[in-house]
């Protein structure tokens, strides 16, 4: 397959060998599971159970609410201990509403929705409804509800489903192992998704450092003429969907647009596998493969783990810490976020848990910018990190926004490459957060303005109506003096 060059990028030390040759192992159920109602982008789910309820494996325990949301299911059978606030797997460590399940050890399945016998004869609504009902979200890390992305076929003219198996983050090998061990499931899931999207072509993008995965996937896909395997060069951040699309089509996704505007929808390989389970067996998303790695860990490995397993239990399953980790990261080392607490659970978007040593982090003191321009050369989004960061340092966010800080994908390449160790991507994360907060405030102010105006108009109208009623009554008042009925509000505003 013909490939196209992608701008910028870096070549970090990948360190994937710690886990890449270790087969996925299933972790036994822990003493308790913690299912946050919000594990995805969008509105949190609404709890359908309360303390004391008995649930079965795969039973729906959280209902999606709002346009963008996802359902939650019980990963095993057991009793609901409580619905309470538990620290989220989030850098803030803020508490989030969570369903706590005590497994009964029987692991008994609930009655599941019937398998869709021939998904390729089913219409796209049936498949999308099943994907939504199964609580499937993007498993590459962003956790965007997949059914919404599968619905894009009705809004945009699409031609290709791009399955993302690039896995460009160092350390992480969970997608690699899923492709090697469950290639048929991934391919079947991809074909179902392509059918739901109404696209003829499927391309599976795999980075060149996973030759076995590429071989196995190629073999598994050989029966289907419309599936192509694209082995893309090892270049971080190749796994960013916009960059993967550029490598495969040569087209750059315009700022603030979607890859779907180019006719391509990107899904992660693990998401495709989840779709296969949901459609072929009616099984919801209740477990995932997580890479548990890092120098501070005794036994790095890939673990198939129930959603809601506490990270401390997962670490324990991997032999515990050989030394005190300097930082525990949720996700990959480049874009992952530090975890303030090991009490947080594994969620649908957890691709890796890394216990990193001081040597692996290599925090170094920041010195002044020497204006070498390396960050500009390597920025995969064509931005100018040096310029943006200097404005953000002075809190001049308006100029930073004009320079395109909102188009930054936070890949961290600039921070990685900076010889002065300036925390460039931290500045951009801060600026993006501030600009988003400003937009939220503005929206709220507009809403308040409309509310105030609507109220003023209503009160004026009520006052006028009262005046008119009074005027109409005056001539007749002598004949029939009846007190006009006033509402509470009219009284109040009189």
């Amino acid at each position, binding site marked *: 397959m013909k490939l196209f060059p992608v701008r910028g990028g870096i070549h970090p030390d990948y360190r994937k060998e710690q886990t890449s040759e270790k087969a996925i192992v299933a972790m036994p159920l822990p003493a308790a599971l913690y299912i946050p109602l*919000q594990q995805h982008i969008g509105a949190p789910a609404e709890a359908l159970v309360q303390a004391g309820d008995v649930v079965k494996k795969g039973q729906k325990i959280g209902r999606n609410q709002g346009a963008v949301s996802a359902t939650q299911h019980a990963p095993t059978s057991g009793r609901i201990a409580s619905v309470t606030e538990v620290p*989220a797997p*989030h*850098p*803030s460590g*803020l508490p*989030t509403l969570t369903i706590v399940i005590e497994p009964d050890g029987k692991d008994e399945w609930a009655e599941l929705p019937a398998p869709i016998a021939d998904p390729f004869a089913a219409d796209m609504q049936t498949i999308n409804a099943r994907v939504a009902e199964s609580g499937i979200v993007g498993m590459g890390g962003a956790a965007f509800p997949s059914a919404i992305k599968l619905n894009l076929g009705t809004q945009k003219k699409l031609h290709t489903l791009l399955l993302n198996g690039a896995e460009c983050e160092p350390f992480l090998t969970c997608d690699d192992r899923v492709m090697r061990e469950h290639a048929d499931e991934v391919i079947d899931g991809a074909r179902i998704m392509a059918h739901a999207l109404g696209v003829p072509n499927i391309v599976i993008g795999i980075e060149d450092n996973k030759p076995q995965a590429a071989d196995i996937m190629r073999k598994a896909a050989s029966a289907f003429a419309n599936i192509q395997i694209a082995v893309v060069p090892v270049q971080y951040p190749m796994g960013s969907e916009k960059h993967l699309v550029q490598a495969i089509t040569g087209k750059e996704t315009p700022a603030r647009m979607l890859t779907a505007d180019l006719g391509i929808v990107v899904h992660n390989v693990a998401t495709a596998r989840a779709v296969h389970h949901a459609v072929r067996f009616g099984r919801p998303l209740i477990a995932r493969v997580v890479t548990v790695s890092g120098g501070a860990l005794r036994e790095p490995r890939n673990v198939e783990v129930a959603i809601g397993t506490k990270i401390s239990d997962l670490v324990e399953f991997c032999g515990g810490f050989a030394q005190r980790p300097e930082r525990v990261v949720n996700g990959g080392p480049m874009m992952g976020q530090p975890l303030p607490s090991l009490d947080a659970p594994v969620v649908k978007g957890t691709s890796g848990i890394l216990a990193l040593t001081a040597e692996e982090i290599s925090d170094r*003191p*920041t*010195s*002044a910018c020497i204006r070498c321009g390396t960050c500009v050369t390597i920025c995969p989004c064509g931005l100018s990190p040096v310029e943006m960061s200097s404005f*953000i*340092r002075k*809190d001049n966010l308006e100029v930073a926004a004009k320079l395109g800080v909102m188009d930054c994908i936070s890949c961290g390449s600039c921070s990685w490459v900076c010889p002065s160790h*300036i*925390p460039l991507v*931290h*500045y951009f*994360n*801060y600026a*993006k*957060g*501030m600009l*988003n*907060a400003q937009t*939220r*405030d503005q929206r*709220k*102010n507009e*809403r*308040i*303005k409309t*509310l*105030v105006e*609507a*109220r003023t108009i209503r009160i004026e109208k009520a006052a006028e109506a009262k005046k008119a009623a009074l005027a109409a009554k005056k001539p007749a008042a002598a004949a029939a003096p009846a007190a006009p009925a006033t509402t*509470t*509000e009219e009284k*109040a*505003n009189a």
Partner: protein
Amino acid sequence: MLMAIGSLTAMGVTLGTILGAAARYLHVEENPLEEELKAMLPGSQCGQCGYVGCGQAAAALAKGEAPVTLCPPGGKAVIEALAKKLGVSADLSEHEEKGPEHAYVIEGLCIGCTRCIRECTTDSILGANKLMHTIIVESCHGCGKCVEVCPTEAIVMKPIEVTLNTWHWPKPEVAHHVTVH
């Protein structure tokens, strides 16, 4: 040639006269102080001062109808700047630093009198006569007018909490290590 010069001159004189007259008769009284004060306020239009927005608050300040301590989100810095501009001394003894707030009904204390509903400028209070009231937090702009009218002290102001959806990274603290040779 003369015709052209003449007609253009005549047009210029006529239009100039009309414009000059319009400027005089349609003149809008604008207080330059108001603009300056408005620039000092945060501009978030939060309404916590009790005015609809910062523009109206600035107008009230300029007329001397509002105290310089009116802006809670602005904090100490804004109070001092306003006091300096208006040449008044600010009483900071009762001032507390606080962020954006929303009203909250303590349900056990609410007697359903609807007084707060009538006061709310954004229709953010839900309830009816002799029925418990509640605040629609999403549209409450924290003006606190409802707190003042509540006969049972059932309404309190609470800071707007940071959630997983609104949290963002703080500005990185960077101590530049400069080597002096």
